């Protein structure tokens, strides 16, 4: 079941498109539900599809195509480090290695306590601030150094 808060937000998105094009809101609907539940379970995807009145497969297709949807549970904090060219040139590798050693996991893994998931990501369109990372798809942190990472991790409770 979608929460009232989620459906209220989805309704706002639906208002952006013609009344007979409810499918157009599927990307934001999935984002909204993921923000609330942490990831997209099969049930959550089906709920979104039902709410929009589209086939489940249409919602599933979107959830699997776009990189920022999570189809498995992730840690409370998902850290995505951009390692594409401009970030690579400014030592994103050092940032990844520092995070891996602080958290004791490799990219793609989640810490045993379920707190952190570490990811490598593609260009975030913010290359001037390299190296950088994203927390839970929303908070961008730029001009990273190992010291800044330490402070950042200490602040994530």
């Amino acid at each position, binding site marked *: 079941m979608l929460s009232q808060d989620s459906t209220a937000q989805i309704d706002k998105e639906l208002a952006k498109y013609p009344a007979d094009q409810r499918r157009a809101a599927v990307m934001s609907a999935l984002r909204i539900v993921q923000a609330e539940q942490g990831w997209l379970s099969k049930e959550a995807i089906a709920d979104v599809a039902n709410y929009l009145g589209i086939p489940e497969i249409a919602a599933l297709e979107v959830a699997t195509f776009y990189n920022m949807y999570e189809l498995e549970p992730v840690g409370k904090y998902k850290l995505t480090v951009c390692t594409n*060219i401009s970030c690579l040139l400014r030592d994103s590798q050092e940032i990844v290695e520092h995070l891996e050693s602080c958290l004791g996991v490799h990219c793609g893994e989640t810490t045993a306590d379920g707190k952190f998931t570490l990811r490598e990501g*593609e260009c975030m369109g913010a290359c001037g601030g390299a190296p950088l990372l994203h927390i839970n798809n929303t908070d961008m942190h730029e001009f990273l150094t190992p010291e800044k990472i330490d402070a950042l991790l200490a602040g994530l409770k």
Partner: protein
Amino acid sequence: MANEVCFRTLDLPNPASLETYRSIGGYETLKRIVTEKVPATEIINQVKISGLRGRGGAGFPTGLKWSFMPRYYDGEKYLVCNSDEGEPGTFKDRDIIRYNPHQVIEGMAIAAYTMGVRTGYNYIHGEIWAEYQIFERALEEARAAGFLGENLFGTNFSFNLFAHHGYGAYICGEETALIESIEGKKGQPRFKPPFPASYGVFGKPTNVNNTESYASIPYIMQHGGQAFQDLGVPNSGGTKIFSVSGHVEKPGNFEIGMGTPFPDLLALAGGVWKGRKLKAVIPGGSSTAVVPADMMMQCTMDYDSISKVGKSSLGAGSVIVMDESTDMVKALSRLSYFYYEESCGQCTPCREGTGWLWRVVRRIAEGKGRPEDLELLTDVSNNISGRTICALGDAAATPVISFIKHFRPEFEYYIEHGRSMLAA
């Protein structure tokens, strides 16, 4: 002079606010056009005179594109802004939205008036959530102030504009994939023709332009097309925002006249960092050919010079600077992974070819390259180019071909010795 067009509000307090935008005459141009009923042909003519070419990478003349939209179409038409900036090295649209969102809105509203469109979408890159929110706020401000909505300025012109948030797919920068994505589908490019001007969003005529293209329009219509053209050079009118990243002291965006010598742009970005020497530059985003330092230093930053002198493309003006310590094989390996990861999988040459490219470049970078690998890479690249629905395939092939062309000895050394020649 810098920051004259899209970054007009950059140095003012609260640059993104409606109040700030209005303090520099924002929305006055829209109001004049709509209330004085300036003919669409006159607007398109000014945009043509301005020499504005699409800032999303392909450089197609904006005025000409606008003239393709059916004028007397009975039914809904759409206007789309492409803020899906995901080409590695490109980060200008983010700053336009962050610091001057109202100029994008005004530019889109003028475009909508010109092409007789009532509804628009701005498709914003998934990774820039803060900017998406800034744009949503700007839309609310503009609606409340009567610059968006029904019967604007008491006329029969109506324009409603909405933000659509992407969620992590480079391919959605391609305009027909973006249109599919707005419709709530996987971002897989469509066959062209039909072009968006006849079959776009929800199957209706649609005009797609880049954020910077739209944001240039209020300036053009306020000062005249010629004034904009004069900021640049022939065939490359106006200013351009250059995103400079990589090995420079001060990475960032610089809005300067087209035709500015590359060494001047490099100096604006503080020069090559750590006092090192320049090795190479990718001048227009990761999909454009790499240019060795000596060639790049001869270039001016405009379409013709980058293409004739640099043998590359201006693209989106995304200047990736590499110093003498850069391992070109490793750099290419990362780029090739990107295209492999982002290929939408629709066309076989691209889906399979990008995988081949990445695996072969990676094995060279891991010291396991084979003597025939450079030949193989050239072969695979040639078999992707021109054989796909969209240009992602070419975008994947271009770095491979150009890196090997200009830095072949580095690749050969890796294959022969199993390690980088830079360490030697």
